[in-house]
């Protein structure tokens, strides 16, 4: 589930209010077909399909049913059946997707439909096996489906960001350093002492501190970028992050 480094249409600078995100591209295209919009939507779907699958599974559907439903949903989405309808959630892709899914599940669930489509034309090749394993192992059974969806979304998002960060570091020849320092990306009440890392990496403590600071800064930038891709207004990134954080409390 890797993404391209430079999705089409995004400006590099964070905080540039004229930056077009993938989601804005999709929304702007609307019903008209435009290749960039198609690509953008497909990329978004390819990234964030797991939360949908988890939600559908949480609703009580079996593995096979959930696969069918998710596949069907994406088929319709990629045909832009839902983009014209849903209005209120356009600002955030995450909320839009969930609302569309709920709408779909409530109204259009019909086995026959799925069968008619020929058992799901694989428009997106998705890794069902991995998804199901993840769902089974997920310990959060006491959460509501919505919260589970948010959590899965956040997880997916973070995986994207960490993967990107890792790729960047490896490209710059700091792969091993990244593996050691990535734990500093977490906020905790106990400050991990830098001495251990310094010894392991054969660097001075001061250098470790600086490296950690840089890593955190880059992480934050990437995180904001990634979140912004699913929003129409990048200024909403803070709210979105807070909402996702709320799914874990």
């Amino acid at each position, binding site marked *: 589930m890797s993404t391209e480094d430079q999705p089409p249409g995004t400006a590099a600078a*964070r*905080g540039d*209010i004229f930056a077009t995100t993938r989601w804005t591209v999709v929304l702007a295209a609307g019903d008209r077909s435009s290749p960039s919009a198609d690509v953008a939507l497909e990329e978004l779907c390819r990234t964030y399909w797991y939360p949908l699958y988890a939600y559908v599974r949480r609703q009580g559907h079996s593995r096979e049913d959930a696969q069918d439903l998710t596949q069907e949903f994406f088929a319709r989405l990629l045909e832009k059946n839902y983009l014209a309808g849903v209005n209120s959630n356009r600002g955030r892709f995450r909320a839009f997707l969930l609302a569309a899914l709920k709408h779909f599940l409530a109204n259009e669930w019909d086995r026959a439909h799925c069968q008619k489509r020929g058992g799901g034309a694989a428009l997106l090749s998705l890794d069902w096996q991995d998804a199901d*394993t*993840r769902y089974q*192992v*997920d*310990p*959060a059974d*006491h959460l509501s489906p919505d919260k589970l969806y948010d*959590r899965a979304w*956040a*997880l997916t998002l*973070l*995986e994207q960001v*960490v*993967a990107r960060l890792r790729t960047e570091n490896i490209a710059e020849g700091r792969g091993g350093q990244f593996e*050691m320092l*990535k*734990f500093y*990306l*977490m*906020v*905790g*009440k*106990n400050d*991990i002492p830098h001495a*251990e*890392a310094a010894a*392991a990496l054969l660097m001075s403590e001061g250098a470790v501190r600086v490296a950690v*600071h840089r890593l*955190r*800064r880059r*992480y*934050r*930038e990437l*995180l*904001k970028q990634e979140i912004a891709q699913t929003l129409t207004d*990048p*200024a909403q*990134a*803070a709210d979105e*992050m*807070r*909402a*996702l*954080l*709320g799914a*874990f*409390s």
Partner: protein
Amino acid sequence: MNEPEAGPNMEKKCPQCGAPLPAGGLAGLCPACLLAQGAAETASDTPPFQPPTVAEVAALFPQLEILSLIGKGGMGAVYQARQPVLDRIVALKILPPQTTGGPDFAERFNREARALARLNHPNIITVHEFGQVQGMPFFIMEYVDGLNLRQLEQAGKLTPREALQIVPQICEALQFAHDAGIVHRDIKPDNILLDKKGRVKIADFGIAKILGNPPETGVPETQGAIGTPHYMAPEQVEKPQSVDHRADIFSLGVVFYEMLTGELPLGKFAPPSAGAHGVRVDVRLDEVVLRALEKEPDRRYQHASHVKTAVETIANTPPGAGGMGGQAGGVPPPPLSPPGSPPPPPGPSPEAILARDYTLKTGHCLERGWALVKSHFWELVGIHALILLLLIIAGSAFARTSHLGNAASDMNVSDGTSVLGLVLGGPLWAGLFLYFLKTIRGEPVTVETAFSGFSKRFLHLFLLNLVAWVLIGLGFICFILPGVYLLVAWCFSLVLVMDKGLDFWPAMELSRKVVNKHWWKVFGFLLVLAGVWWLGVPACCIGVLVSAPVAIAVFLYAYEDIFGQVAPATPAAGRPWAPPPISGAGPAGPTGPAGTVVIPPAPLNPPPPAGSNHSALLYVLIAAAVVLSLPALFYVIPLIAVLLALLVPFFFMSQSIHHGLPPHLAGWGWGNVWLEIGSIALVFALLVLGLILTFKVIFNLAKPAVSQSSPPRSAAGTGPGVPSSSGGGSRFLKYAFLAMAGLLALLLATALAGFLWLTHSAPHRTFQVFTAQPIPPVMPLPPQAPSASLAPTPPAPPAGINTNEFNRFLKRTRQELDRNAIRFNQLQLSSPNESQLFISLTGLQTRKIVNGTTSWQNIVGLLEGTRDTTGKWFFNGQGQLVSVHYDLAQMDLGQVLAAARWLENQPPAGADNSHF
């Protein structure tokens, strides 16, 4: 190094926050912590804040002597400094330069900081000064020599007992700040300091709000959701703009949990008493902590003072029969229960009660009952009068009002009205008992509580009343003694049905078995209660309105001792709870009062809604008193006079004892002591007259029974012997009247003597106040131009004044003004009543230091604030008129008068107050 060790199938946990790690691409990383890092507040495009060195700071603050750098963090740096002028050590806190705040930042900062500076509380670090220097905001605050809670926890020096002493202090500080409208928003162990005396000091109040991202600017980068993520309330994370003071209560809960267990309450966390962390924690604390940690703000404690009360109750009462593994009762207010389900009965189970023994301390119950009625006088007396009125209407009051009532006569008087009394009597009495019981326990009560006998257990109360009285009646018929035995044995059954929700027969059985253990003691106790009740009778039966509630209160204290939360401890002379010092091992603290008596209503609580019941009950009381005198309608005029004469001085006596004489009375000439004595004599005369007439009426009612040969029916005010012939009737009347008059005269004489003694022993409060001339209000001094010359030495006090007292008074006033860097233009003295001296300052200005230059600014638009116990500051919201009220009751009145007169002759202050 930080990989969680786990097998492939075991659930992994994040080493930082303890939440379980999900499977997936984030190998070993915790999503919650990652997200929190993403949201963390930093200046990501500027280098981390480097605090200035000591030398740099010293250059910026020439008026301070910078001693050292104490600490630094994301929120700035703190230095230890010394103010040479005042010769005190202070803490100087400098915050990172706020370049993104916009032009309004300075204005907003000043406003917020001023509100913080007004927070003056022993548990809050006081802010002395604030301002900005080179774009960096700074605060000069109280210096605390001690450690913060984080350091104490890490050093492993916190036991749960110490936590129980720390938390109430935090609650006090929080409640104080919340009352002033300030929310902390960043309560965490790093912000809670403890000085060497074990006193809690909370730092950084409201600073989070000052530095927070203002909603208007809409800056894209995240400046943090304000606060440290793990201590933030859920609504603070999701909707930071709609946060109120209850977010602080959540943070307090997190801190409390961490103090008890050493871990953070994240995800699915175990209650503190589960002992999973190796420390034994009282199970009653679970409820407190969990309630503070409720996700919905409405489900939490709504006020910090409630948390404090809950914790102090637990700290006070040792875990008894119900304690460490039993129920967590007695923690007010009760948690929300699903509607429709009956609330679980509080306190220990019947088996536990039967299994244990008790001691009934009559004297102690009397003390407490009397204290309770005194403190809740109008409520209790009023509600009792109301219920009594209703019982009279139901027609069976007189037969029911005594525990030693004559059940035999009940059986003789088997007319229709007693049926109604039987039906209504049980629920009405039960409701009344419940009202008293809840007041004893400190739970909120309303008038509806007194009628809950009808809504709650009506059937069983009715059955109880019926069955009990039938059987007691039978017992009396069978040579009286079994009746007496049953009467005593079943005396608690009504309360048991109401309080513990038992059925009528089990309640009777339980009462009987428990009383049987010490039957004679209970019998004696009930006799004493009857005596107390009858004490009110001589005062024209009106006194019953007071003595009966006292008797009921005493009875219910005994009930609480026997059936309540814990076995009664040896009664201590109710000392107020005082926290032992943290460092010392210390004994468990003073044994609190027996039973579940909670802290008496704290003055910090806002006036309860029962205040509105107050005046309503007062009217009810007067109405009931008037109605009770209905039988003597023919003698209405003297009786009304008697009522007024009784109630009015009673009211004023209680008022003057508690609050000092109301000021407007000073103008009525009440200062004349002879008028006082004369009015008391008038009261006495009226009482005697009324007594004769009332007694005659009652004797008329009792006449038929007197002439019978059956056992005499006791009328109110039994006299010596009961001659049954009609000839002796008038002699009986005469003897009885003389006895009553004598008793009454004695009573009044005692009251008068007591009153005089009280007034003599407190000259500055009452008696001298009557005779001294009140200080006339002083004309405002003409405004003068501020004098340029400063008097170098303080003035000498006028002759005849104790120099030390006077200087102390001046110094206190000066300190107050200096402390707030305030000067005034006009000084005005007045004295609304003789024990208070008001100093009014107008034309107030406060000193402001900007970039090292001093300027004076008018104080406008301030809100009411309260200073320390030596004086009270009142700010007019509109502007300039400000008063400082000192209660100088501790000083001799003569000194105060002379000092006031001296002050009024002084010229107003100049550029500063050094002439003062």
